[in-house]
């Protein structure tokens, strides 16, 4: 019996102790009419050898591609030590650290993670993670509405990842919160402060500020942050954590700094893995800490005065406050944060900076090569970080399909999200791409365009 250790003798002895004749008797409180029959869609069990073969065949059928898609999930080198340690049983198979004395490993690691994330974003405090970047943004919107009190409206630039916007709508909709979208500048690809002035007569709980935005373009974060504060709205930053090794962190935006910083933690040592599990991060100013959702770890002392770590400020949480909690979030993404913390310890500040700089340099080099091709053009004039949009002289869907046949994923087709841009793709070359990779891409793109 897979994963069940009981011998026949054990079963007899256990039933005798209970005073039951058969295991079936243990289900005698369930009304017979409710008992189900066979499971028809569940195939017979496989041995580990058989399932290994099946999974390997499927993985090999999917194969590997030279990937230039980013769009919120980025391919970076992950040091071998990251997942070898993260999948140690003591991290992998433990639960939320409710029993602090038996969970000091996870708790200390989370405290280190909070410290790193607060520093990376330039904020005062961080929680112990959210599900992913999109849901972290939704929680930040809810947090802003809770702390603002009079407005239930959020200003959302259309330069924010389209799926993040969609997730925010799904999550906040039922709480009577309006998400008002702001158009972007067709020339620069940015959210212009003057566009915001059209909204200056209205009240908002928060303005969302992406950096870099979905197009890879860098926003006027100082002006946007100051604009939000001048209207008594909170500034919610959505940032790529890797970019924080190079870019001004949200805590230093404008004259007062952003109030909440969220984002997708995946670039920090988490594999692409078809979209998850990743982790969302959330950091904020000290004054907002009691409005934060999710687990927060604090350092304290034990009865002998020794340093130790516990889950703290739990009066915000569902298991204590029930219907009055700041969120229903319970489990977060502990194992992913474990990996990310190890990743950041292995790269250090200089390593992270080099990875970010190389990713950016590779995308710049790629763009330069792409612009030599007939009809391939950079669409926006704004400066960018490690990801950019180019227009193509042929339908993006056909170009990308042709590239795919050469085992190259050439970028994300933007037609679905920004049809006004025409045939355009979002491309990204991280530090994982060599000069030969860039050449390979450009050569095949040229052929694809010529053919179409």
């Amino acid at each position, binding site marked *: 019996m*897979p*994963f069940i*250790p009981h011998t026949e003798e054990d079963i007899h002895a*256990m039933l005798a102790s209970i005073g039951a004749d058969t*295991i079936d008797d243990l*289900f005698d409180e369930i*009304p017979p009419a409710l*008992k*189900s029959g*066979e499971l028809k869609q569940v195939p*017979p069990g496989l041995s580990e050898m058989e399932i290994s073969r099946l999974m390997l065949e499927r*993985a090999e059928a999917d194969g590997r591609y030279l*990937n230039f898609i980013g769009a919120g999930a980025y*391919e970076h080198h992950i*040091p071998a030590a990251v997942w070898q340690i993260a999948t140690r*049983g003591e*991290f*992998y*198979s433990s639960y*939320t650290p409710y029993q602090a004395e*038996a*969970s*000091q490993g*996870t708790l200390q690691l989370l405290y*280190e993670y909070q*410290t*790193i994330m*607060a520093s990376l974003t330039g904020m005062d405090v961080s929680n112990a993670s959210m*599900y*992913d970047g*999109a849901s972290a943004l939704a929680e930040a919107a809810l947090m802003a509405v809770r702390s603002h009190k009079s407005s239930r409206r959020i200003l959302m630039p259309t330069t924010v*990842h389209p799926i993040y916007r969609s*997730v925010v709508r799904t999550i906040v909709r039922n*709480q009577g919160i309006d998400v008002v979208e702001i158009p972007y500048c067709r020339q620069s690809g940015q959210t212009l402060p003057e566009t915001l002035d059209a909204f200056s007569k209205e009240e908002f709980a928060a303005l969302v500020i992406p950096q870099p935005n979905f197009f890879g373009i860098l926003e006027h974060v100082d002006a946007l942050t100051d604009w939000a504060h001048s209207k008594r709205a909170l500034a919610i930053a959505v940032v790529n954590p890797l970019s924080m090794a190079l*870019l*001004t962190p949200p805590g230093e935006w404008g004259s007062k700094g952003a109030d909440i910083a969220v984002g997708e933690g995946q670039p920090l040592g988490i594999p*692409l*893995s*078809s*979209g998850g*599990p990743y982790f969302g991060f959330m950091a904020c100013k000290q004054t907002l800490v009691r409005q934060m959702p999710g687990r*927060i770890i604090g350092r*304290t002392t034990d*009865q002998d005065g*020794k340093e130790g770590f516990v889950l703290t400020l739990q*009066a915000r949480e*569902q298991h204590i*406050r029930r*219907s009055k909690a700041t969120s*229903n*979030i319970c489990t977060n*993404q502990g194992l992913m944060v474990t990996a990310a913390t*190890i990743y*950041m310890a292995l790269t250090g*500040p200089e390593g992270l900076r080099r990875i970010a700089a190389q990713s*950016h340099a590779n995308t*710049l080099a790629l763009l330069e090569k792409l612009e030599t091709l007939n009809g391939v053009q950079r669409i926006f004039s704004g*400066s960018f970080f490690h990801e950019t949009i180019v227009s193509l002289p042929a339908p993006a869907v056909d170009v990308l399909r042709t590239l*795919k046949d050469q085992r190259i*994923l050439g970028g994300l087709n933007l037609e679905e999200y920004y049809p006004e841009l025409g045939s355009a793709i979002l491309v990204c070359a991280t530090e994982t791409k060599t000069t030969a990779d860039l050449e390979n891409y450009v050569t095949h793109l040229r052929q694809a365009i010529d053919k179409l």
Partner: protein
Amino acid sequence: MLIFEHSRPGRRNYSQSPATVAEIEGIPQNLLRKIPPMLPEVSEMEAVRHYTRLSQKNFSIDTQFYPLGSCTMKYNPRACNSLAMLPQFLARHPRAPESTGQGFLACMYELQEILKDVTGMAGVSLTPMAGAQGELIGIAMIRAYHESRNDSARTEIIVPDAAHGTNPATAVMCGYKVVEIATDKEGDVDMEALKAAVGPQTAGLMLTNPSTLGVFEKNVAEMSRIVHQAGGLLYYDGANLNAILGKVKPGDMGFDVIHINLHKTFSTPHGGGGPGSAPVGVASRLLPFIPVPVVVFEKDTYRWLAEKEMPQSIGRLSAHMGNAGVLLRAYVYVRLLGAEGMHRVAEFATLNANYLMAELSKAGFEIAYPTRRASHEFIVTLKDLKEKTGVTAMNVAKRLLDKGYHAPTTYFPLLVPECLLIEPAETESKETLDAFVASMKEILEEAFTQPEMVKGAPYTTPVRRLDDVKAAREPDLVWKQPKINLI
């Protein structure tokens, strides 16, 4: 010692980042960071040693018996991890075309179909990333259903008082008022209270069955009838699905929507608090509302259904498609178990729980619901012990750590005083359960002979009882470099 205290300026790992520093072109000076972030500067070996040492300060399923009630801490087969981490699966970009992921999508589709069968529901969406998100989606679908019928008077969600805290918190997040109903002496929902609570304002009922009291709600069919008759829908919290896997299908109990905690019943890792994964299943009337994306199999090809093809869907809950890697682990687990293994999960989880309950009762512990069968878990109440010795449930839990066991869930559900919610799970052997009973017996004796010693536990863990009050009153949430006095 914190990783930052191992840090030395200028120390770095040359293998883990580019050898040269690329020039940063095209980014205006005013957008560039002036002071580098405070990341640790340690060697690879120091990082490996530090985090390996930290791991050794954790209790885990791989190292200890972990009878944490309502969390289903069963063995997480290693094959599930290594097969989900095959390089091709890890490298696959979420926005890569479906044609490049047919192997991956086949696993997702088959998992969807298996979960439909196991739960007796008409449709399943794999996207929710945790139990609480599954709940949020479930209640959002109930809301979307009522709205689609222009039934706007339904403003309340009924929740039994024994429910997990996430249930009322979720109902509020979906804009509902929470109505709590009481539990009767036998541990079932009080039917009179339910009848009094339902009406034209009822949007739905959230129920965990078997309940958090460790018993099967005998009147579930009647409850379903009452709520449906009032026009409400039934939500099944799958927290305790392990107890009935392959025995009873939530769909057959009349539930309209359910979530399944893969990190409990389907043995994906708890990871120190996530990632979870909580697919939702729905009855046919809620099918149009399920969250996207959903995998379909047409013309020999697997593909995602997205918003455009599901106009009534409540939408997206994650940037991509949920916790794909967790879903792969669950898929490997269900294939290892097969149909027969699935039935055995509930059988042996129930056998272990009832055996442990019987043995603890014989050892002198008071069972909260002694006339009932345990489901996969049961409750011991130490109210009497506290009155006689001053030793509390918390003290016993901490003393168990000294004996090498993770503690059961304490003080939950809230309505049983001084309680321990104990769930052994099917993967534990009789010897482990017997040894646990022996340790519990020792603690019971210690409570009478040396109560102060028990109250001072734990003694053998890396730290002793921690000061939670201090942690909350003077929050120290991030480490700060101590100021160095320059002489």
